[in-house]
Structure formats: structure tokens, C-alpha cells
């Protein structure tokens, strides 16, 4: 039951995003199941262009996170708006394991610490980041905890064979 404001906003967003990201696949997500109104899928870097479009539509950067898939990392950028016709945009950006994407902290200063957390957990280094260092783990830690290869404890094998 999206309101007209939402529909209008979605249309505007879709047009400006397709103009800014010709190579991206922009589909309107099914809010009931995935919680996002608009999905942008990019195979390569383009997060600054997405951020620029979002910034002048007065969206705020809800969070940046990453998921460690076997072949590649997937960076997730979530934008949503404060104002009445709520709309959430999710940008999935597939990057290679050793790629180093560009930081968006020039557009959203809040992203400095979000990107530091992703570096801390996944080891993804962001280009031109003001001070890229670990945020949660001890500074001399040499591991990246949220990688799937880290810490495959005996526990997880145990669970796999019993329950699955």
C-alpha cells in the first residue's frame, strides 16, 4: 500500500540512479519480504555515485556492511529517509576478495567509522580513508574475525553433522 509520495519518490530515484549508474541493475524490491523498496546491484565499484545521488535526495546512510561469499565480498550500503514517505534503498556491490573500494566518507562523514569496522572485521581496505585503523579489535590483532575462514572452531563442525 505505498503512498503516492513514495511512488513519486521511487520513480525519481529510479530515474536518477539509472542515469548515474548505467551498468547497475536497479529493481524495486518487495518491501514486505526484504524490507527495502529499491535494490541496486552493481558488479563493480560505484558506491560514491550512489552516495552522491542519495545525498541530494536527503537520504541518510543507515549502515554499511559486508558479507563474505566464497567467491567475492558483497558490500551492502543501506540508505533510508527521515521524512514522511519512508523509502529504503539497498545497494549490493560485489567486489573481489583483494579489491579496495573507495570511501564515501567525503559525502557521508559518518561512514568513516562504519568503514573502519568493515576493515576491522573483513580486511577490506578503503581508498582515501582519513584514518583507516581497527576500531573494535585490539590494534595489534593480525586476524580479521568475520571472514568465513577465521576460527572454524570444532564447535561448528560438531553442530553441522548433528543438526543439518
Amino acid at each position: 500500500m505505498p503512498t503516492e509520495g513514495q511512488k513519486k519518490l521511487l520513480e525519481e530515484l529510479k530515474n536518477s540512479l539509472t542515469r548515474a549508474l548505467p551498468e547497475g541493475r536497479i529493481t524495486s524490491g518487495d518491501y514486505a519480504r526484504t524490507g527495502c523498496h529499491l535494490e541496486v546491484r552493481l558488479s563493480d565499484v560505484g558506491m560514491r555515485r550512489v552516495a552522491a545521488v542519495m545525498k541530494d535526495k536527503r537520504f541518510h546512510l543507515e549502515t554499511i556492511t559486508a558479507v563474505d561469499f566464497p567467491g567475492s565480498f558483497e558490500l551492502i550500503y543501506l540508505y533510508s529517509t527521515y521524512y514522511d514517505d519512508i523509502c529504503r534503498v539497498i545497494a549490493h556491490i560485489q567486489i573481489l576478495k583483494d579489491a579496495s573500494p573507495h570511501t564515501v566518507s567525503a559525502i557521508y562523514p559518518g561512514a568513516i567509522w562504519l568503514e573502519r569496522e568493515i576493515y576491522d572485521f573483513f580486511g577490506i581496505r578503503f581508498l582515501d580513508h582519513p584514518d583507516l585503523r581497527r576500531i573494535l579489535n585490539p590494534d595489534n590483532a593480525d586476524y580479521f574475525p568475520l571472514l568465513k575462514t577465521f576460527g572454524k572452531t570444532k564447535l561448528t563442525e560438531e553442530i553441522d553433522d548433528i543438526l543439518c
Partner: protein
Amino acid sequence: MLNIKTIDDASINERVYQLNLGPQHPSTHGVLHLLLKLDGEVVIAADPIVGYSHRGHEKMAENRIWEQFLPNTSRIDYLSGLIYNQGYCMAVEKLCGIEVPERAEYIRVITSELNRISSHLLGIMAFVMDIGAFTPFLYGWDDREHVLDLLERVTGSRLTYCYNRFGGVRNDIDQEFCDGTRRFIDRLRGRFKDYHNLITENIIFIKRTRGVGIITEETALEFGVTGPSLRGSGVNYDVRKNEPYSVYPEFDFEIPVRKEGDVMARYQVRMAEMEQSMNIIEQALDNLPEGPVRSHVPRFIDPPAGDIYFAFESARGAVGYYIVSDGTRVPYRIKVRTPSFSNLFVLTRVLPGNFIADAIATLGSIDVVVPEIDR
């Protein structure tokens, strides 16, 4: 108010005085290390250093089955444990398409709103103690005991509840809980008059909070600030109203918003928000439907593959679970978007130019829970 000296001013550099506020400090509400660069009493730069209570909830999520992550959720933000429980259960229910009976939804809303009141009580009174008034802290503590007793009667524990399950709640609420809640709400309304006389109208409190630590709407947008800190700056954003979930659409309550964006505005927003929570509880208690409290759910659930982002409103702001499931019994990735993470780092923009006392007041007014940042 003060002529803010820029950090790279040459004359400043040899007078810069580095002070470690924390990690063990009476007013950082948890293990937060705020590295302040001072020129005399004026803060020039603030660099929050976090990670002291990092337990790796997200890594734990990848080593446990879906049910076993339940106790973790209420330990991410221990002050609004029930709200996080409800959020996680609703996210997984939305992913698997599990139906939740009407009565369970109402009980979840009642217990979450009670939890929000207890969290606001502690947040406000700890903030007032940072300003220097000890006595209101203990009055707030006394009220909070009543909420904890009520929730102990229903859920069995006082702080880290694990009360919600997939498909509903663990056990039903009895009539004594409903009467106890109504008595508590009348008692708290009576005490609000005392709090306003003792704190809000107090000339010293007004002088310490009016026009201090102003967060503009623009800064809030850039840093992704949400919750009472945002509503204090004039933006009417509350997930319960903007993205209604559970049975919130059936209650009419309005969102308190203030324009000034200073410490006093955030304090007043929290006080007004408690009154709104009380309205919600009363309306929920009045038309509490009958019926089961838990729909039949298999013992170990297997959600379909896919990803979901579910946002809900905790006492500190908009929380979000981003869950990636690959169809097995163990979640592939759970990212918890916590409001305190974005709210805290606004300090790097807001603190420069204030006194130390204002820095403490601003930190208290943002009501940061540090384990929520460190996850």
C-alpha cells in the same frame, strides 16, 4: 558562544593538553574511552575509542542455530533487551513467514514499551547525575525497580530477558500483571510533576543544558543519527510511526519532537516519550485480545535462502537486523545496525568548542550504551 580555535592553529599546538576520559570514568556509562584534546578547559578535538567490550556477537551468530542467537540479542543493548528480542524474532518470522497470534503481538508491545520506560528512566537519571544532581538518580532508580518487578513477574528475569520466541512469547501474562502495570503508570504520572519541578524548571539545570551541544539537522543526516537525539533536532523520524511494524498502527500516539537540538531538547524528548509509551501500554491493556500466545513452530526452523533488513525502534534509535540466510539451520550473516554507533560519533563534530562540563553533558544527553557500539 565560544570562538572555536582550529586544531592546526600553530599557537595552539604546544598548549594542547590531552586528557583520557575513560575507559574507566564515572560518567562514560560503560567502557568508553573519549580522547579529548583540550586547550585549558575548552575541548578542541574529541576522538572516541571503542572496542573495550567487544564480544563478537556477529561471529557468534554464524556459529549457532537460529534459536541459539536469542540470548545474544538482549545482551547487545542490555537496557532495551526485550525490544531487541522482539526485533530479532520479527525479522526471522518475516523471513520464514511465520504467523504470530494477536495476543502475542500485544504482549510483545506491552513488554517492549515497559522496557523502553525503564531504559529512558535510567538514561535520563544517569544524564542528570552527570550534571551533578545525585538525588533524582535514586528517585528514577526507585521507579525503575517497579518496572523491573513487573517484567520479572512475566518474563522471569530483570535485565537480559529471553522472553520472545519465534511465533510468539514464552508464557502468558496474568491479571495481576495488568493491574500492577496500571498502578505503576498512575504512580509514575504522579512523579513526573516532581521531576519537572526538581529538574526541568531548575535554573541551574536550565543554564547547564540550554544551548549546549547543538546537533543540527544537517549533521544528524550526515552521521545517520536516529532516536531521541534526532527528534531533539527537529526531525520527526520514529520507526514505530514511519515504518509501522507489529501492532503499532492500532495505537494512536504522537512522536515528541523539539526544534532546538540542544541537550535540554533531547532531555525533554525522552521525558515526553515516556508519557507516550504509557499511553500505548494503557491502550494495549484495554483491548488485549484473548487467544494463544504462541503459534505452532517446528523445534528447529529452516528459513528459506535470501536476505532481509528489518528495522525497529529501540530506546536509543532505529535498530536494524540485516540477516543473510543460505537455507541451512545456521545463519550465514547477521549484521545488527545499532543506533548508539552512529549517535556516538556525532560527538567528533559537536564537542569541539565546548567546555569539559558541556562535553560530559552532551555525552550524557546522547544516552550511549557502550556494549551496543562494541557488539
